[in-house]
């Protein structure tokens, strides 16, 4: 039941106003600018976009790399989420802290750590050189492999928390049901747990893919912007900052917005996910 207390409308108006001016209005401007050339509603940027090989390559790169990152994050993150789900007390706190610490550590620092590992004279190179697998120090940077590993490392905590949170919301009776299956935990896993956790894994994957597509820092630092590793956000930044081509920059931003929008709609179409999201507000409303 809602409390019948006086709450000034100003409390919601100010934040909304702020978001409108500094977030919604800028994005509206981007959309408007993508369509204004010499004449109003000029679609010229779209034509140029699809005619040029480079831009198509960038979009393909982004999708492919994001796909690889999502799969990697899923393979590594799901077991950790499972471990977290099954731990209690001190063990739980340690694991939780490791994941949280990774989450809050600067993205620059984490990307930098991979630079130090993958560069010529870095950890991997020196290791392989010392045990004579390679004949001279080699750099593993500026490759798709580097970008994918870096992004998996950055996005892993997100994947872990999303899966764990949704698991918690959906499967509360784990221990009770597990005991009815006796000692065969693994059997329980395959017959019951996996089907039920599908929801969490799908939601996590879609979200991670969404975050990957728009990534900038890690691909920029680990990929260097060559033909294999340039991603959409990097192209936007280049157009706006280096070439001052605001129209092109807006056009590509708009395209990215559409991609992100479509993916978000897929996520929100899942009723369960919507409910998980709004639980906090339903409870009190």
């Amino acid at each position, binding site marked *: 039941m809602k*409390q019948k*207390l006086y*709450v000034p*409308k100003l*409390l*919601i108006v*100010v*934040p909304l106003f*702020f978001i409108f001016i*500094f*977030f919604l*209005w*800028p*994005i509206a*401007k981007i959309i408007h*600018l993508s369509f204004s050339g010499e004449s109003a509603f000029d679609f010229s940027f779209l034509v140029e976009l699809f005619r040029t090989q480079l831009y198509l390559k960038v979009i393909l790169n982004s999708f492919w790399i994001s796909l690889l990152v999502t799969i990697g994050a899923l393979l*590594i993150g799901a*077991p*950790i989420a*499972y*471990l977290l789900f099954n731990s209690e007390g001190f063990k739980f*706190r340690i694991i939780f*802290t*490791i994941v949280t*610490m*990774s989450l*809050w*550590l*600067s993205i*620059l*620092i*984490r990307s*930098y*750590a991979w*630079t*130090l*590992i993958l560069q010529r*004279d870095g*950890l991997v190179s020196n290791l392989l050189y010392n045990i004579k697998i390679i004949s001279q120090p080699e750099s593993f940077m500026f490759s798709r492999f580097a970008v994918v590993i870096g992004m998996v*490392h950055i996005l*892993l905590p997100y994947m872990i928390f999303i899966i764990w949170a949704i698991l918690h919301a959906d499967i509360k009776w784990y221990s009770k049901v597990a005991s009815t299956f006796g000692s065969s935990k*693994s*059997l329980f896993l*395959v017959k019951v747990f996996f089907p039920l956790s599908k929801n969490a894994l799908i939601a996590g994957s879609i979200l991670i893919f969404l975050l990957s*597509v*728009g990534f*900038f*820092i890690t691909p920029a630092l680990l990929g260097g912007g060559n033909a294999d590793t340039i991603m*959409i*956000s990097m192209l*936007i*930044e280049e157009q*706006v900052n280096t070439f001052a081509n*605001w129209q092109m920059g807006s056009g590509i*931003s708009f395209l990215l917005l559409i991609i992100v929008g479509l993916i978000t709609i897929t996520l929100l179409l899942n009723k369960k996910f919507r409910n998980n999201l709004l639980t*906090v*507000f339903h*409870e*009190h*409303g």
Partner: protein
Amino acid sequence: MAKINNYKYLNLEKLIIILSYLGLAFLLLPVLLVLPISFSADQYLSFPPSSFSIKWYINIFTNSDWYIPLIRSVVIALCVGFLSVILGLSASYSLLTAISKKNTFFILSSLLLPLIIPTAILGVGLIFLYSDLKLLDTYIGIICGHLILALPYSILILSTSLSRSDLFLEKVALVFGATRLYSFISATLPQIKKGLFISFISSFLVSFDEPVIVLFISGANTRTLPRQLFDGIKYNLDPTAAAISGLFVLLSIAVNIYYISLRKKN
């Protein structure tokens, strides 16, 4: 009941547990690696370092290329943290108490949008806005830009905090003659102390570590630490970047160990 032949499932759980520990190592080790490298005395960082020194750490505080952006980032982040908590509290409170369920969905969606919209897009939009408002390369511009990114975190954390607290106490305070504002301050605020603290820290960290927007809207006068760090890493010429990384890893570990030991006492 038929006998279940579960030999093929026997090791599945063990496999998952092993994978999870490997995954945790993958998460933790690269970060820890920064530490020995940051104490390297070489100009060009390699692993393992040939000699050790703390000169890059000292450089952080003596070289104006680094300590000025550091101070700037701290100041900006403090402002962002403070404003984010206020605006976030204001939004969460009214969403929880005074907005209908239908409106909540739409308002919440717009407030949380910055979480999923790629930051580069926001950067471009802000360039357009700021060139009109003459806010390019200004502190206010950066604070507002960071605030957009930090606000969703504040709202999420404070909403959870508020929904777990008892708002009925405000009514009680009113009955006893307190003003509307004072009843909020005395009855609800103490209950959400933890949420306020966490949302401040989160907003502070979001701003302190923000590297994308500053690429678009900051300039020579407002060069923040992430901006400096980005160049330092990209061109790999300044090992001070490793020292800054090491500093934050150490700080982070210290805080987390403290936190774990605190909880353990309970």
